[in-house]
């Protein structure tokens, strides 16, 4: 497909004067006013102004249609007005009226149209035969893959096929993918969230109920202070900066950045704390030390809504300024300043990203952050909250649908009750579903026998161990023998050399992706690799969940290019081949092998009660999509118009059925609003008492609650006790009998609870101490590969674990070896604004690729001089497990002395070898480079198996 732009109606004008005279002056001035209004975003953005903008966009006049879609890069969820003419994506206009981005885009969003013209795509199903790529038909590919999988299933059980999904799926595809491997009979499925924010989800959800961004990008307008730790939104979420800038300019809100690098975000900060990588807990406790020391904590808030803060206080007491300085390297006065700023300017928001999560103690980090906000009383407030910026466009949605190895959609877990709930939603016999799984029990994480159906599968971070580890040591019948990369780049996972080995050991490797990805080339296989072209999200439609829990409807811009097919179509084809097609789409209309998206939405609406994905029907989402401009850009609430009273994107939890009309919850746990209008309290998730103390909230409750105190979660018994049972209709009673708010498929329990002003999930305290985790109180532990050997004794890592997520997991046995002599430098990684994730997609986009043509390593001038390295020279960066990368040196003070930074968005080189020739013809990205993760090392979070990719060790030398 070639880039064709047809002319819009030419206005006949004379040469030379054309540009001037052709402008309709009035329209023109309006436009300039509007852009400037937009530019003033932070100034006087009134939604009315935005509406005018929409009204003045000329329609092109020659059959050009404007399609409203959502950017497929990051989780900000920017709206795009795509202009399509005759099936060709001819133009891209800013969506000034979109409540999140107000027309703005970063480099990636502004280059979205290239998708409609890109040639570096996987064009047709291809398989590797004798080292050569051979084109095959879809049927051939599906049949061959299916036959091999069925064979493996027969011989080794369903757990030997690994289903690696993607945060690039839309919600419907995510849901179908989770259902897909559930019906295949395995929990061996996962997606990017594991290596992205899994520690956040675990840490945050275990503190107060839900593991998601509590407020929204827009709500940052109300912040009086902003603290960003382990995040570089200026590169990772550039459009979010428009909201931070507004708080900075309008509220004079100070911006504090805590990061080992002087990032582009730090360049705009008022205070930058340059910590040693991997010392997040230490710095947070160090700041909190001043807050407790000076009595700046919010005592009333803690009394009413927090359990266990005293134990936190005890741990924090160890982190006096000296101890903090010793561990983090940040000068005490700066730590004090940070504490003072956060204490003086409330509410303050707390933002974090991968710099905080990707650690062996990632869950400790995230809980430390939560405790920080709890101590300051910043939770459940507009302008406060933990604003966790998620990564991919739909990683929030894909996480919510639990394309994970340890849960079912809606975080229901893997217990028999959860399976029964979903079997009811799917209208399948639970026993049939159960029979899909390997029947033989295995030894679980806790040493007790467990059925594979109820046993957490192998996480994506460890799939290579699932292949390479001795069969006797793993918690399933056989090793992983077939691997399906369905929209997932391998270069985003650590231990590249072992991954290469694992790929070569597999019986079958299937890549389903719009791009061949590094999976196609990084191994030296000659057979048994299939590449199936998937359509991008611009080539299908459905809903997508932004980081702030808002669900947006995304329209199809163009038809799938080349021979690519939408993911859900491929799922259906494969499910049919694998003999569960009818069950897979039992209540979903299928046309030409494509399941109907709206039917899928309605199906998950029927089951996702836990997190309120039940009220967002396709109709409601489409209505909002048509009226972007009616939502306020700070509160996200529609004022007037067809969506009056609703919050944009019906941010979950959007309780009850669509008919109930819940407006969504803009800020979690905010008791200043009635539950019916998006208010909430902390979730009663951890029981009602602990060590004789009540865990329920103490005198705090959402406005309008009829119960003026804490209460447990709602079930049929509680309703009856309260005398509210008869508020249910007869039908609802039938469905609710014996159920609770999570399993009542009628939504009656939720409806009645909310009718009485109560949150269906109860009203409890947040727990500062997560007694179910390895470190109930978050503590600092040195990374496995650390060059501060003097701290290892005081802050040791965990003992090795015999089995976690089916695999032996090592900690102390690695840390005890001192690598700091051979590998003296700290290695950390991060992203670039031009690229996303593994970068296969963005490096195939020439508009973006031109801006980042070389993989590089940031090296401090002093280290560069020590090693005789000059800026721009090629160097070897050797990771502590021996993998070597040949990259360009970028000598800069952005990093501290002793720290080397690598961007992780490159791939296609392996230890100095250019793999371009191994790509299928015409499908190689424009830019290739060493994958940073090749050199990154072993290390996994103690709760979620998040990989450690933010601090390891390395050495450098001139190449």
């Amino acid at each position: 497909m070639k880039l064709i732009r047809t002319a819009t109606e030419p206005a006949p004008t004379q040469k030379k004067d054309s540009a001037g005279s052709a402008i309709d002056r009035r329209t023109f001035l309006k436009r300039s006013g509007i852009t400037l209004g937009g530019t003033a975003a932070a100034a006087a953005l009134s939604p009315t102004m935005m509406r005018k903008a929409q009204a003045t966009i000329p329609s092109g006049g020659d059959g050009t249609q404007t399609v409203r879609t959502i950017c497929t890069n990051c989780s900000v969820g920017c709206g795009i007005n795509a202009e399509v003419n005759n099936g060709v994506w001819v133009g891209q206009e800013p969506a000034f009226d979109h409540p999140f981005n107000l027309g703005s885009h970063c480099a990636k969003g502004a280059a979205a149209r290239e998708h409609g013209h890109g040639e570096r795509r996987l064009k047709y199903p291809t398989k590797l035969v004798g080292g050569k790529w051979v084109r095959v038909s879809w049927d051939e590919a599906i049949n061959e893959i299916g036959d091999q999988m069925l064979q493996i299933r027969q011989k080794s059980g369903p757990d030997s096929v690994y289903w690696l999904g993607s945060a690039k799926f839309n919600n419907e595809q995510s849901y179908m993918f989770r259902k897909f491997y559930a019906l295949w009979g395995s929990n061996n499925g996962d997606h990017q969230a594991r290596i992205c924010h899994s520690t956040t989800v675990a840490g945050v959800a275990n503190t107060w109920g839900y593991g998601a961004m509590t407020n929204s990008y827009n709500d940052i307008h109300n912040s009086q202070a902003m603290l960003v730790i382990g995040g570089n939104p200026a590169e990772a979420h550039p459009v979010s900066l428009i909201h931070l800038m507004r708080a900075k300019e309008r509220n004079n809100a100070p911006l504090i950045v805590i990061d080992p690098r002087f990032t582009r975000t730090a360049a705009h900060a008022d205070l930058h704390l340059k910590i040693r990588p991997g010392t997040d807990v230490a710095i947070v406790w160090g700041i909190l030390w001043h807050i407790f020391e000076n009595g700046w904590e919010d005592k009333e808030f803690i009394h009413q809504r927090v359990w266990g803060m005293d134990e936190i206080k005890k741990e924090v007491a160890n982190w006096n300024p000296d101890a903090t300085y010793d561990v983090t390297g940040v000068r005490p006065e700066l730590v004090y300043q940070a504490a003072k700023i956060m204490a003086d300017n409330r509410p303050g928001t707390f933002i974090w990203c991968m710099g905080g999560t990707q650690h062996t103690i990632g869950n400790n980090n995230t809980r430390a952050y939560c405790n920080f906000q709890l101590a300051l009383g910043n939770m459940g407030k507009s302008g406060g909250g933990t604003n966790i910026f998620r990564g991919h466009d739909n990683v929030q949605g894909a996480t919510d649908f639990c394309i994970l190895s340890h849960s079912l959609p809606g975080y229901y877990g893997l217990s028999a009750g959860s399976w029964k709930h979903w079997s009811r939603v799917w209208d399948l016999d639970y026993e049939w579903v159960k029979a899909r799984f390997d029947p033989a029990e295995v030894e679980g994480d806790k040493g007790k026998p467990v059925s594979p159906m109820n046993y957490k599968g192998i996480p994506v971070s460890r799939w290579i161990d699932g292949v390479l580890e001795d069969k006797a040591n793993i918690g399933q019948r056989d090793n992983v023998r077939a691997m399906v990369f369905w929209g997932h780049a391998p270069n985003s996972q650590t231990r590249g050399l072992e991954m290469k080995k694992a790929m070569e050991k597999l019986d079958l490797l299937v890549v389903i992706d719009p791009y061949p990805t590094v999976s196609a080339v990084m191994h030296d296989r000659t057979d048994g690799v299939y590449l199936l072209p998937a359509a991008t999200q611009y080539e299908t439609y459905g809903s997508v969940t932004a980081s702030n829990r808002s669900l947006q409807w995304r329209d199809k811009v163009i038809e799938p290019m080349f021979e690519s097919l939408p993911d859900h179509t491929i799922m259906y084809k494969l499910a049919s081949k694998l003999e569960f097609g009818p069950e897979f789409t039992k209540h979903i209309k299928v046309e030409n092998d494509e399941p109907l998206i709206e039917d899928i939405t309605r199906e998950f609406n029927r089951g996702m009660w836990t997190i309120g994905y039940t009220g967002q029907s396709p109709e409601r989402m489409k209505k909002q999509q048509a009226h972007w401009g009616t939502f306020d850009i700070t509160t996200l609430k529609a004022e007037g118009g067809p969506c009056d009273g609703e919050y944009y994107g019906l941010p979950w939890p959007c309780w009850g059925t669509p008919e109930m009309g819940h407006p969504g919850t803009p800020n979690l746990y905010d008791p200043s609003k009635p539950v019916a209008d998006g208010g909430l309290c902390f979730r009663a998730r951890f029981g009602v008492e602990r060590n004789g103390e009540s865990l329920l909230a103490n005198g705090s409750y959402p406005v309008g609650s009829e119960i003026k105190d804490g209460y447990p979660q709602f079930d049929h018994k509680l309703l009856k006790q309260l005398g509210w049972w008869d508020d249910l209709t007869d039908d609802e009673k039938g469905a609710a009998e014996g159920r609770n708010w999570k399993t009542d498929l009628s939504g009656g329990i939720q409806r009645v609870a909310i009718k009485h002003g109560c949150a269906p999930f109860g009203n409890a305290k947040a727990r500062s101490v997560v007694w179910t985790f390895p470190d109930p109180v978050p503590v600092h532990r040195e990374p496995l590969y650390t060059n501060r050997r003097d701290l290892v004794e005081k802050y040791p890592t965990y003992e090795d674990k015999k089995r976690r997520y089916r695999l032996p997991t090592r900690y102390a046995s690695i840390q005890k070896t001192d690598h700091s002599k051979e590998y003296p430098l700290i290695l950390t990684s991060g992203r670039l604004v031009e690229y996303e994730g593994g970068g296969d997609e963005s490096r195939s986009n020439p508009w973006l690729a031109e801006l980042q043509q070389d993989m590089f390593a940031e090296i401090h001038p002093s280290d560069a001089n020590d090693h005789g390295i000059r800026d721009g020279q090629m160097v070897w960066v050797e990771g502590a497990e021996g993998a070597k990368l040949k990259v360009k040196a970028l000598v800069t003070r952005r990093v501290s002395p002793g720290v080397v930074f690598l961007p992780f968005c490159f791939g296609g080189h392996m230890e100095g070898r250019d793999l371009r020739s191994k790509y299928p013809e015409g499908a190689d990205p424009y830019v290739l480079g060493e994958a940073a993760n090749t050199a990154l090392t072993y290390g996994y979070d103690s709760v979620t198996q998040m990989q450690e990719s933010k601090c390891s060790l390395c050495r450098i030398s001139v190449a």
Partner: protein
Amino acid sequence: MARMKFLCDAERCIECNGCVTACKNENDIPWGVNRRRVVTINDGNHGERSISVACMHCSDAPCATVCPVDCFYTTNDGVVLHDKDICIGCGYCFYACPFGAPQFPDSGAFGSRGKMDKCTFCAGGPEQNNSVEEHRKYGANRLAQGKLPLCAEMCATKALLAGDGDRVSDIFRERVMYRGAGALQWGWGVAYDKQGIKG
């Protein structure tokens, strides 16, 4: 009479390069030609600031005065454009321009640069407005459609302003006012011993 201007607010620019790709997108610019670029000062050091630059559409443009064939002209909106049919690709405008705006498709031996290409303020060229020919040679003509340059319209943080000079300066002035006392602190207390941070 409106005079078109760009202004980049360095306090807001985060070097996301959205303006660069927006320009490529709207004008179908080939690899190697960048009508707009983001320059970062003090890259990686304290005081790092970025500014997006392209043709600034000078009212007495140096490029126009040095052009040996006089191919430049200024539109009624104050946009400096050039006629590629007249341009001989000599490169003089590139020497003269303070901003490095003029771009050449190649820079090979024997001075073979091809016709000069530069930011048109999304106002096309001398061809008929929004004709295929105009688009091929100069890219989009958004002004004729009543729109402003896409780079500014899509700027991630609204750092890059474009439009009628009076309005641009109004917006900017308003921002500076809002920053108020903060302007002194702005970006300078970046952790390095300097006073002035709130708190």
